[in-house]
Every structure is written in C-alpha cells, then in structure tokens.
C-alpha cells in the first residue's frame, strides 16, 4: 500500500447493495470528492487481490466488485469490505501517473470553441488557456473503451451539452459536457461541446494496456496549436 498515513479524516459511511447475485455495489453518500474517490481506488486495489473477486469497476463515488458466489458468500464478502474500509487510507496523490495530452484547439478540430466562448463570456483564447491550465483527474472509465470521466474542469468553463447531439463525433475529440471535460476515444454519437482534438490514441485494442488512461491518472492538456 502506498502512503496516505497522514490522513486523519474518518472514512465516510459505505453503503453496500447487491447488483444481482454475483456483484456487490459499495457506494458513498454525496458529494463526490477526490478524497472519497481515492479511497474507492484503494478499496478496488485491495479487492483485486482477493481470488474470488473477478473484476472491480469504479464508478463516481462508488465501486462494484464482480465475484464468484460459488467461491464466496455475498454476506462474507460484505463483511470483509466493511471491515477493511475504515483501515484504508486513500491512494497517495504522489503515486498517480501524470499523462500529458497534446491538443489542437479550435478550427476544424474544435468546432464548438466559439460556442463555449459565447456561453462562458470568455474570449476563445482564454477558454483554451484555462482548459490547458487545468489539473485533471480520471475518476473512472466508462461509456466507451478508454473514455475517461475527469474531474477538475474550471467551473467557469462549464457549458451545457449541445441541444442536438452529433451523430458522429470524430475520434480523439476533446469536449466539454456540463461541468466535465473528456476525450472521445472512438467515433461515436455525442452531445459534448468540441473544443479540440488530440493526435494520441485513447484506445488501441492491440496494445497492452489497451487504453491510454486509467482510473486515478492525472491529466494535463498541452496546447499544441490554437486556431481562433
């Protein structure tokens, strides 16, 4: 286990609920915070060592364990999670990987940059500057292979989703959806405001690991080019 011994904050109350007969959901009361999410990742890391746990899947403020009910009784697994939980320190911030993601902002790569500027009341170059200045954390992956739900968007950049979602968002588009920012790994329907595009592959099924990002990663966007 990595560090975190200085944390004196008591562990928030964990609520457990079965998700079918072979999965256990552990969730925390709102609000979702980075500190709580770090504890979730720590629980996931511990649970992955248990042979009867087949997969761990972090959500936002929650974790699901997929287990084999022939190897462990659901009640026994619940007790194990509940007894481990207060012992866990959150994952150490310093242990996180930092992934730098170059982005071509605006122009054909970011067709909605000016809409975001209009909505936020900021000049387009200031939207880019603040987006690229952010320090982001991957809370979880979902929706598509390699699609990261990230926290850390500057609140003033929050912009509602487009009223008419696109039927085909280009792969590797960087977007803002509400208070979140993210990158589409694949061509997909989507409603986020597109402000740029990265040349990096977010998902490559032939690679190991197949995704660029993992839960817990810290992400920085680097403005490779800006077209206003």
């Amino acid at each position, binding site marked *: 286990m990595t560090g975190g011994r200085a944390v004196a904050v008591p562990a928030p109350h964990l609520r457990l609920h079965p*998700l079918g007969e072979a999965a256990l959901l552990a969730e925390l009361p709102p609000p979702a915070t980075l500190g709580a999410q770090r504890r979730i990742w720590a629980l996931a890391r511990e649970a992955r060592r248990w042979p009867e746990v087949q997969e761990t899947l972090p959500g936002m403020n929650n974790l699901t364990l997929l287990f084999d009910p022939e190897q462990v009784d659901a009640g026994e697994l619940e007790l194990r999670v509940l007894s481990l939980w207060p012992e866990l320190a959150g994952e150490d911030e310093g242990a996180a990987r930092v992934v730098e993601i170059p982005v071509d902002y605006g122009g054909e790569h970011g067709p909605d940059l000016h809409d975001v500027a209009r909505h936020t009341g900021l000049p387009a170059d200031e939207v880019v500057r603040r987006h690229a200045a952010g320090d982001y954390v991957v809370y979880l992956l979902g929706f598509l292979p390699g699609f990261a739900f990230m926290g850390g968007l500057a609140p003033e950049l929050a912009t509602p989703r487009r009223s008419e979602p696109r039927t085909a968002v280009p792969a590797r588009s960087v977007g803002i959806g509400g208070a979140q920012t993210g990158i589409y790994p694949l061509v997909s329907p989507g409603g986020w405001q597109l402000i740029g595009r990265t040349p990096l592959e977010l998902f490559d099924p032939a690679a190991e690991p197949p995704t660029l990002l993992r839960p817990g990663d810290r992400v920085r966007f680097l403005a490779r080019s800006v077209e206003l």
Partner: protein
Amino acid sequence: MTITVLKPGMLASVQDLGRFGRRELGICPGGALDTLGLALANRLVGNEDGAAGLELTLGNCELRFEADTRIALAGDDFGARLDGQPLWPLWSVPVRAGQRLRLAGVNASPHKAGLRTWLAVAGGIDLAPVLGSRSTDLKAGFGGLQGRALKKGDVLPVGPSRLGEAQQRRRPFGVRGPEWDEDLCEGEAPPGFITLRTTPGPECGHFSEAMRRRFHTALWRVTPQSNRMGSRLDGPALARQREGDMLSSAVIPGTVQVPPSGLPIVLMGDAQTTGGYPRIAVVIRADLWKLAQAPLGAQLRLAEVDAATALAAWAAQKRYLASVHQGLAAMGWPGAA
C-alpha cells in the same frame, strides 16, 4: 477448413462467451447473448464451451461449409435446412464439404417469431483473440472478423476439430433443451409469456411500493428498438419517487434500468460498463438465456426472487449442463472444459 458467408441476415457476428477483466477500462463483456446456448452447441460438436461461434439474427441467412465438419444450432432454428434437410436446435449434425445451411425468415420459425440463433462448428471459428476473446465488439469495432458484422462473401477460418473421423461422421443426435428442464423453468408461465426472475436493484427504493408492484406484475413487451446492448420494454410506465441525476455506476448484463420515459431497459452483453439511470432490478444469471432468445414482441413478466433462489437456479443450470456433458462423455465425445 473455412465457412463462406453467402447471406449474413440482419446481423451476424463472431461471438464466444465474452471478454472479461477489462470493464474498468470501459470495455464491455460482449459475447454470445445466450452463453448457455453457445456452450451447449459447442459441446455437441466436441468443442470447449468457450470456442467462438456465430450469432445470427432473425434468420434469412446462408452459409457454405468448405470441408467436412459437424455443426449444432442453439436458439431459434428459423426453419434451418442443410441442403434441404431440416435441422433442429441442439442437434449435432455431420456436414459434408460444399453443403449449405440456410435459415429462412421469421415466418418459417416454428414459433412464428424467433430472434437469434447460435451456430457452433467443430473446431470453432479460429480468428485471433483480441484482449482475451474472439467476440466482436460491434460498437468499438474490434475482435471477431475485423471488428464488424459479417458480410456476404466473408470467409471464416475454422480451427482443428477435436472429434475423431468416425465421430465427425456419426449420424445426427440431439439433447433435451433447457426449456424442457423443470428445474430451470420452474413456475413458467403458459406459452407466449416468458418469466424472467429478478433480484432487487440498488435503486429499487427510488420507486414506490405501488410502482414496484406494477413492475413485477405487468406484462412487458420486447420492442423492435432492442439490440445487443439491451432489450427495450413497453408497458405501463414507471414513475420515480425521487428525481435528480445519479452518478455513474456499474451496470452488468441483466441490469434493469429505468430511464426518464419510465419504460425499463434490460441491459445485455454489449451495454456500456457504467450507467446513470436507476437500477430497479437485475435479472438472475440463470434466466439471461431466455431474454437473449425472447423474440421481438414477446411478453415478459419480471418476477421478484431472493438471492438464494437466484443461486439455486444457477446451480440447477450447472446440473443441467453436467447432465448433457455426462451423456456426451458416455458416447466418447471429447470432454468440454
């Protein structure tokens, strides 16, 4: 040995039992929606349960086998014929080089409305596994054959058969399907209705007692908007007690989500790994094959059971598979791992 696709039908894809251990990266399990059916068909042709086969949708499909082999179907047969000879689900049948398997349309189905067929071939479809599975992830475009649905003219490689020459040529035989097993379909409603047993989901409390009763007593119709991601149901809409957004949280095949329309969606293998709608219930693992086979327009009842019943049903399914295995082993058929 290869199989040539002469006509793929509405949606044909290569599938095995699924891709596991990667949900944390957003990669869905996929795989044959009826894993019991694919495993049975595989056993009937001497394969391991996890060999890759084909999942065919709504019949209207034609395949040519380019060498001698042995095949089995599971699910609905859509009036399947091998060079004119009828072929039934869960029969193991020898095939000669050049023979054609033809599935007719919905009207040829003995049930008048089927949905999916799974085909196993001795040796299995031998494409390179991607991330531990040969299943096609149609949404993300990888696995199976070039990550896509099969097209006319595709040629599929088949691996080495585990059957001896005499076994491969052995005359056709069949096994009793799971629908005939009393333990597997206990309390089954009369024909025309399919009962799926569910356990309460994490957000069942977002619905009032009356709404939960409605959910469990109503007859839900499987709509044509259903696909490999999920079965969309139509019936009396369910109102939520609590409003407000839910944070992203895991969904697994069998999860019953209730979106704002109030009409439930039962998620299947190709659903995304996390969702944001209240999960009112989860279909037990032992009943997922019934959902995978439920034809469009089928009427479903979503009964409530406890976890012990769910586990007993799973044990019954394993006993059924073991009994099939035993029968095959007594014939000298290769053991299914």
